[in-house]
């Protein structure tokens, strides 16, 4: 009988894994299980073009014309509820199970919710297509938006809502937005985009709670300020979808724990994309990367290992982008707290610059705003400088 590989999670990482399996000549059965009813779609536009109404569902589909030839068996609208490590079976919500010789875990992450916001109308998170459709509908008849959290998704939603003509306030608990990924200095520069475009940004502001019965009316801050709101978007990070694996014996932490190749502690089971926390040789700990390009590229290595290939893990440099207020922000590399940021091109004031982060005078990361050409060169250069982890 031909072997079966089950892919759990039917989004970017899952689809990339299925494509990589065929690319690497796996001709057995591939079953792709996804709890959403939608065929795989792209998430980045959900806070950008799709929310703005300039991209359609068709535009954001991840499927390609050639995908028919992959011969995938889709189980959409079906939730995986457990994994039996002995028989390597994936247990499904409809009571059936998929017995597999190999399993790819690609269940991604979900948006963290604000405690106490359950059931209150007008309060949104943004992770799925359904979230985006609901938010878009709600924004259409709203005039005041409060975004809780000035991370990338919060900033993008604020930017899109400004474009739609709403009055927008962004509330951030930390003194500087994006300090985690970009460092305080550059986080502050990127956050200036809000003021440039008429969005009010309140930093160092804790949220005490939401006001309203049935539907939200205001956001109350810890200092007592009330921000009136027709719609509230909560953008305070994401949680990996791994609870369904609790009894499976798969090692879990802040994500499914894997080695640098994406292999879990259970033979024949790999994890990819946003749900996986892979061992990072340079950071000397498990790191869960939540970037699009990672979910696209890393599955090739994981499934190669699943198919029995050995050899070096290809060198990779984390990369992500964010589009806000028409500005293109791109970041690549691995930044640490005491790295020194240096502007090598353009200027922050002009909102067009390239910044290189250096550690002991060696470039380790690069940030560009509206500098795609130069950024791409630097990104490539970083990639060629990274020693492949063995």
């Amino acid at each position, binding site marked *: 009988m031909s072997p079966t590989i089950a892919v759990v999670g039917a989004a970017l990482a899952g689809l990339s894994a299925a494509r990589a399996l065929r690319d690497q000549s796996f001709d057995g059965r591939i079953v792709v299980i996804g709890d959403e009813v939608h065929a795989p779609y792209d998430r980045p536009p959900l806070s950008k073009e799709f929310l703005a109404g300039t991209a359609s569902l068709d535009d954001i589909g991840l499927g390609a014309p050639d995908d028919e030839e992959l011969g995938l068996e889709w189980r959409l609208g079906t939730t995986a509820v457990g994994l039996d490590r002995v028989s390597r079976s994936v247990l499904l919500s409809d009571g059936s199970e998929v017995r597999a010789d190999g399993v790819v875990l690609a269940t991604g992450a979900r948006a963290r919710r604000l405690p106490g916001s359950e059931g209150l109308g007008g309060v949104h998170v943004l992770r799925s297509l359904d979230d985006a459709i609901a938010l878009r509908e709600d924004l259409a008849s709203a005039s005041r938006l409060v975004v809780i959290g000035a991370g990338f998704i919060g900033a993008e939603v604020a930017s899109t809502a400004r474009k739609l003509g709403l009055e927008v306030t962004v509330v951030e608990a930390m003194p500087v937005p994006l300090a985690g990924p970009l460092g305080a200095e550059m986080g502050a520069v990127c956050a200036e985009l809000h003021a440039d475009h008429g969005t009010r940004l309140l930093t160092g502001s804790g949220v005490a709670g939401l006001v309203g019965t049935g539907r939200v009316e205001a956001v109350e801050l810890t200092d007592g300020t009330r921000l009136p709101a027709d719609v509230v978007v909560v953008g305070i990070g994401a949680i990996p979808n791994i609870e369904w694996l609790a009894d499976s014996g798969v090692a879990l932490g802040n994500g499914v724990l894997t080695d640098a190749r994406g292999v879990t502690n259970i033979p024949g089971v790999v994890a990819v994309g946003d749900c996986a926390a892979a061992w990072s040789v340079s950071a000397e700990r498990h790191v869960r990367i939540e970037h699009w390009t990672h979910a696209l590229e890393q599955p090739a290595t994981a499934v190669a290992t699943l198919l029995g290939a050995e050899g070096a893990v290809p060198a990779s440099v984390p990369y992500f982008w964010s589009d806000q207020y028409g500005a293109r922000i791109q970041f690549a590399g691995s930044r640490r707290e005491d790295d020194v940021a240096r502007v090598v091109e353009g200027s922050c004031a002009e909102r067009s610059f390239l910044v290189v982060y250096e550690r002991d005078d060696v470039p380790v990361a690069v940030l560009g705003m509206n500098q795609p050409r130069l950024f791409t060169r630097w990104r*490539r250069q970083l990639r060629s400088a990274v020693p492949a982890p063995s």
Partner: protein
Amino acid sequence: MIPVCLTTALPPGEATRIEAEEPIAVFNVDGDFYAIDDTCTHQDASLADGWLDGCSVECPLHASCFDLRTGKVSGPPAKTPVRTHRVVVQDGMVYVQPGITADGAA
């Protein structure tokens, strides 16, 4: 035919953009010249700003890859190919013929 530049002005591994009805990106791959639509079919990025890797260019934004010879997508998120255009090199000058594909079809 639209003049692009002197062959010496576009060294191997480099790309340039020319304004036409639709902007066109011209690449030098180890001495061979290729021309494709400059605008990525995914969103609004200039492929002349992208990264040349052999005969394919990687979009500077979301890393879609296009084959310079055929215009075909070799990596998502783009789904639609870009158009190719014929390149003519004459007397040390590079020209493109928009509307005529690289393989000669009109």
